[in-house]
């Protein structure tokens, strides 16, 4: 069994999982940005440093074990905010050198994909990864997760947050926008940009901001969601049709959105595929995604000495070898 430490953005999390995929503990503390502003990397990293000891203590207590019983320490090495990543890396290196445990650097996105596949019991799914840091359609092939399509500019989470903050909401804005959208009645015409298997949201964001104050916020939230999610669903359907796979998995923070998930179910039905989304407790960033991906890496022989526990703010998920997959 191993410990996973997550600290890419707003969440500091720690989790212990065993090699059967059981989550023995998963604890976290999330940095809250003041209303109207986003994550300030310095403030978020300060938050992480402050809560780290308590989150770790809670984690070990609820898993009922000692650090010395672990096989390895995994940490999120990227991609993410530098100051935040460094807190997790420092904690991981300290534990690793003090307890003489191997260190396993984990790509945060691979964590989402692998934990989602485990919890939803999917073997080789087309994955829609939607969060604040990613928006991509990913398919496992040739010992890597391959990017079939992705955003050409901002992510789904950034679209929701930047629009939400513009109309005065606090980050993360997704849940508030989802609630407002339920009261929307008029579908406004906004840009719909699908280029092949890629999407682009920046034009949609600009158009929605321009319309703020002219149309009601409820209508805007509704129209923004309908356009953006339809774009995601279209590329997801294209990936299913092209790859001829029969599993469609949604992971990442935005998979908590009920409207997106109901649309995804409809896509899967059209392509005779099985849909699934991360269970709500694990859709957001968490230690478990790092622990589980760490386990798979560790079992494939990947680990580094404590002195090589670096972080990579820019680390594309399609550059990571995943030898445990076909």
């Amino acid at each position: 069994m191993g410990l996973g430490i997550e600290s890419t953005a707003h969440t500091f999390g720690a989790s212990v999982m065993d090699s059967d995929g059981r989550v023995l503990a998963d604890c976290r503390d999330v940095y809250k940005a003041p209303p109207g502003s986003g994550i300030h990397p310095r403030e978020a990293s300060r938050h992480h440093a402050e809560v780290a000891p308590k989150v770790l203590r809670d984690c070990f207590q609820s898993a009922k074990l000692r650090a010395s019983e672990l096989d390895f320490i995994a940490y999120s090495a990227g991609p993410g905010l530098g100051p935040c990543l460094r807190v997790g890396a420092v904690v991981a290196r300290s534990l690793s050198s003090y307890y003489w445990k191997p260190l396993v650097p984990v790509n945060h996105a691979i964590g989402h994909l692998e934990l989602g596949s485990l919890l939803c019991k999917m073997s080789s799914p087309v994955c829609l990864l939607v969060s604040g840091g990613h928006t991509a359609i990913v398919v496992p092939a040739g010992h890597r997760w391959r990017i079939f399509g992705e955003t050409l500019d901002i992510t789904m989470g950034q679209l929701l947050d930047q629009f939400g903050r513009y109309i005065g909401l606090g980050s993360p804005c997704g849940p508030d926008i989802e609630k407002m959208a339920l009261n929307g009645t008029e579908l406004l015409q906004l840009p719909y940009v699908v280029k092949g298997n890629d999407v682009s949201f920046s034009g949609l964001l600009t158009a929605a901001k321009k319309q703020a104050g002219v149309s009601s916020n409820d209508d805007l939230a509704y129209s923004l969601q309908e356009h953006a999610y339809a774009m995601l669903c279209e590329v997801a359907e294209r990936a299913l049709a092209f790859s001829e796979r029969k599993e469609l998995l949604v992971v990442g923070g935005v998979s908590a959105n009920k409207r997106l998930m109901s649309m995804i179910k409809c896509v899967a039905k059209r392509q005779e595929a099985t849909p699934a989304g991360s269970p709500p407790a694990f859709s957001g960033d968490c230690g478990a995604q790092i622990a589980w991906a760490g386990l798979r890496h560790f079992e494939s022989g990947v680990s580094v000495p404590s002195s090589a526990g670096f972080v990579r703010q820019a680390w594309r998920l399609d550059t990571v070898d995943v030898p445990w997959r076909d």
Partner: protein
Amino acid sequence: MARLIRRGAEADILLGRWLDYPAVFKVRTRRLYMQEELDDRMRTARTLHEAELLGAAKSMGVATPLVFHVDPKAYTIVMQYLEGPRLKELLAGNHPRIDLCSVMGAFLARLHSHGVVHGDPTTSNFILSEGRMAVIDFGLSHRSVAIEDLAVDLHLVKEVFQSAHSPVNRGAIEAFKGGYFGERGSAVAEQIWERAADIERRGRYARSGWGGE
């Protein structure tokens, strides 16, 4: 009666007859996950657009199926049936036809030099029929001569080779590049190719190397 031969992402492909010819009926079906208004707007636009550009491409010397009939109210295009394997299948298996990627490159270059962006240049949209390559599916195409727009097409090609044809990725890109440059001429092609690399670098987390610490 027409029978369903393929269910694509946005359209059902049926095989039937038009007058005396075997014909494909491409029917853009209602996508229930989208608001009806949005779906109808898009299906109408794409149907009309595709029919127009299938014809236009032919006049540029790029082989496409002949359009027999367009029914925008039923979101349907009736066109010539081209029988044969798709490039997607030809690149898989033990004897991948990497050479055909050069034809793919030449076709895209030809379209680009006439100001047409295909918009969806994936390997399932190139068919080898009776020994000749043809391009299909112009639903996402548009007219533009902007380097950025042309470069997106090239970016999409690279993306599909990387994600769906990883075993032959390098050879496929080289062949494609040869075909594209040969048709377009190195001076212009180089600019567009370079811009495609830019688009890639703009992608999320695409900067190379280790950050920080």
